[in-house]
């Protein structure tokens, strides 16, 4: 077997890197302002990635590059979902970005590099590759937020994102260095083994764990490390927020799983306590602050904080059920947030950003189909049956009740009820208020088709959640070494 064929599990990453470099060069020769050739090439790359991931599938857990890289079912599933969401983001945001002069080759190449960072994070089983993947993703995102150079809000958002992101990376690195000091290794599985055999100093481990959890909470945007989320969501171009709000959450899920479950499973008694505080505070602050918002993007930012709280509940309940439920939750959340931000890009036009709540007034009169899709998405975010959001919340609650934390489940349900108010307010605005403008909504055929698919998928997954739930549970079961 040649060396090249031993790299099979990493073919997707290698292909993406090569294609991103090729696209970077090809783009120089694309004179067209619409960048159709570059766009097509990026979409073809994503299709190619999906094919490679399918063809290099192997049932076991494969380690590569001295255990720095791991390929298992969970990584394959999450990578496939990341390709799909990046592809959807590009379809949604094409006309939005063209109208703002942001649809450049750099935007697409940075998107691909952010995707590469996510893939590295998803497949990382070593503190070093985890950190580099995270930085690769974050660095691309900082630049993409700042890409709208002439907008003061976007620049401010990029600055806040960059500084707080750097602080979070510092916390994470400090925690990792403490874990390294205690265990003497950076390999996640070796860390787990060292803890299990009692080689590591428990005090030092918990000390490192605190910083690692704080760093993770920063990246996820959980309270009290959430201050950057609303400003970044409001200030950044909607297409970039879509990326931050969907695909990066999938990568963050893998990151949490590899670090806390694969590596620090033995310390669960410590980290689950920390996650309870983060989760409850996130649900409280997220849901209550969202009520007061008049900017739709800001409202979705607080909603994402609340959703991250709910997601953490699944993680802290542990076991195949808990991790499977939280994976299902994050996948559904990514789908919903793609749709909600996609809706903003579709209602926006040149010189007008549909990011206020008023933009949704009377949407039913202007476009009944779009209003119906938005209704499905908002119902799903609120957790109204029979949409997928309901089932996602249900499975997390089931997992947490099975661990005996009924009081946390009650708190979660109460805050979800409060949260339902601001989602249903959008529905009320769309159906019962008079529209503020009668400007016709011009929908591109591709994004129109995609939003229909997006809305109906949320409904279909709510009616038939079984198969996706099975995939999530299987991915978790086959990939995590639960001790």
């Amino acid at each position, binding site marked *: 077997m040649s060396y090249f064929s031993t790299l099979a599990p990493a073919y997707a990453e290698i292909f993406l*890197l090569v294609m991103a*470099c090729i696209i*970077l060069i090809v783009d120089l020769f694309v004179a067209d302002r619409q960048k159709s050739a570059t766009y097509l090439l990026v979409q073809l790359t994503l299709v190619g990635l999906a094919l490679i991931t399918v063809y290099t599938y192997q049932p076991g857990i494969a380690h*590569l*590059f*001295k255990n*720095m*890289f791991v390929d298992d079912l969970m990584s394959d599933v999450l990578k496939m979902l990341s390709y799909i969401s990046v592809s959807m983001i590009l379809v949604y945001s094409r006309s939005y970005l063209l109208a703002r002069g942001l649809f*450049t080759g*750099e935007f697409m*190449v*940075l998107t691909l*590099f952010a995707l*590469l960072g996510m893939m*590295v994070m998803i497949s990382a089983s*070593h503190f*070093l*590759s985890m950190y*580099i*993947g995270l*930085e*690769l993703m974050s*660095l*691309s995102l*900082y*630049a993409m937020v*700042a*890409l709208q*150079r002439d907008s003061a809000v976007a620049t401010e958002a990029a600055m806040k994102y960059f500084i707080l992101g750097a602080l979070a990376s510092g916390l994470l690195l400090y925690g990792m260095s403490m874990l390294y*000091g*205690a265990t*003497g290794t950076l390999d996640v599985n070796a860390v787990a083994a060292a803890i299990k055999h009692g080689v590591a*100093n*428990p*005090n*030092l481990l*918990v*000390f490192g764990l605190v910083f690692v959890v704080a760093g993770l909470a920063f990246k996820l945007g959980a309270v009290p490390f959430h201050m950057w989320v609303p400003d970044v969501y409001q200030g950044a171009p909607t297409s970039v927020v879509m990326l931050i709000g969907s695909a990066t959450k999938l990568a963050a899920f893998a990151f949490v799983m590899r670090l806390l479950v694969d590596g620090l499973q033995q310390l669960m008694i410590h980290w689950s306590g920390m996650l309870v505080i983060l989760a409850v505070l996130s649900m409280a602050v997220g849901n209550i602050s969202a009520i007061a918002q008049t900017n739709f993007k800001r409202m979705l930012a607080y909603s994402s904080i609340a959703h991250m709280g709910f997601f953490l509940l699944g993680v802290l309940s542990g076991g195949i059920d808990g991790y499977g439920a939280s994976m299902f939750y994050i996948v559904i959340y990514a789908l919903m947030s793609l749709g909600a931000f996609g809706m903003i890009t579709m209602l926006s036009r040149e010189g007008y950003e549909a990011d206020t709540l008023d933009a949704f007034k009377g949407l039913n009169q202007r476009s009944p189909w779009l209003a119906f899709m938005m209704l499905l998405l908002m119902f799903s975010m609120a957790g109204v049956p029979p949409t997928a959001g309901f089932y996602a919340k249900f499975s997390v609650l089931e997992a947490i009740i099975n661990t005996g934390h009924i009081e946390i489940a009650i708190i979660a349900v109460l805050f979800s009820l409060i949260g339902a108010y601001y989602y249903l307010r959008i529905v009320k605005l769309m159906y019962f208020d008079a529209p503020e403008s009668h400007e016709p909504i011009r929908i591109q055929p591709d994004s129109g088709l995609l939003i229909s698919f997006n809305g109906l998928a949320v409904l279909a997954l709510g009616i038939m959640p079984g198969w996706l739930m099975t995939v999530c549970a299987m991915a978790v079961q086959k990939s995590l070494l639960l001790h």
Partner: protein
Amino acid sequence: MNLETLMFYLLSALTVFAALRVITSRNPVHAALFLVLAFFSTAGIWMLLEAEFLALTLVLVYVGAVMVLFLFVVMMLDINLERLRVGFWKWFPFAAILAVVLLVEMVMVLGSSSTAGTNVNVAKHAADYSNTKELGRLIYTEYIYAFELAAVLLLVAIIAAIALTLRQRSGTKHQVQGDQIQVRSKDRVRIVSMPSVARPDTRK
């Protein structure tokens, strides 16, 4: 306490002092120079750890290249520190309390008897051991994946820097090399034949 331990504490104290002065000094140029001092003393600590190559690289790259650029930027910008510090003293008590609590906690955890005794005595290397050779070997074998990804990270930084700073404004004056090469002498110099009529003498 042997000489090595003494050196360690000396250099550590110097690093902490320099780092403190970086954020407290009023003059940004002084702050940048204190950062240079912090790098130097950190390089000394690395030297004690027998990481000679890294220590030299730190001095060469950070002190030699990065900090010089940094100083250029600091000297070129007109930074009004008073405006930057508005609201500093208002929030200072909260920050100070938080920092002290954090510091006390860290000292209590790391200084407690249960954490002590975890120091492992690392065997000293022989005199002919090459730190540089070992690093080179590890980077291209065991850490090739991280090494390649770090290269990608730098590529992203280049792309981001260019995308964020390159502006194509209309009406700017710039050279077009193609036109410069193709230019011919007769495009530049026009020889005009003038009738040779004697000027009336005006010098009188």
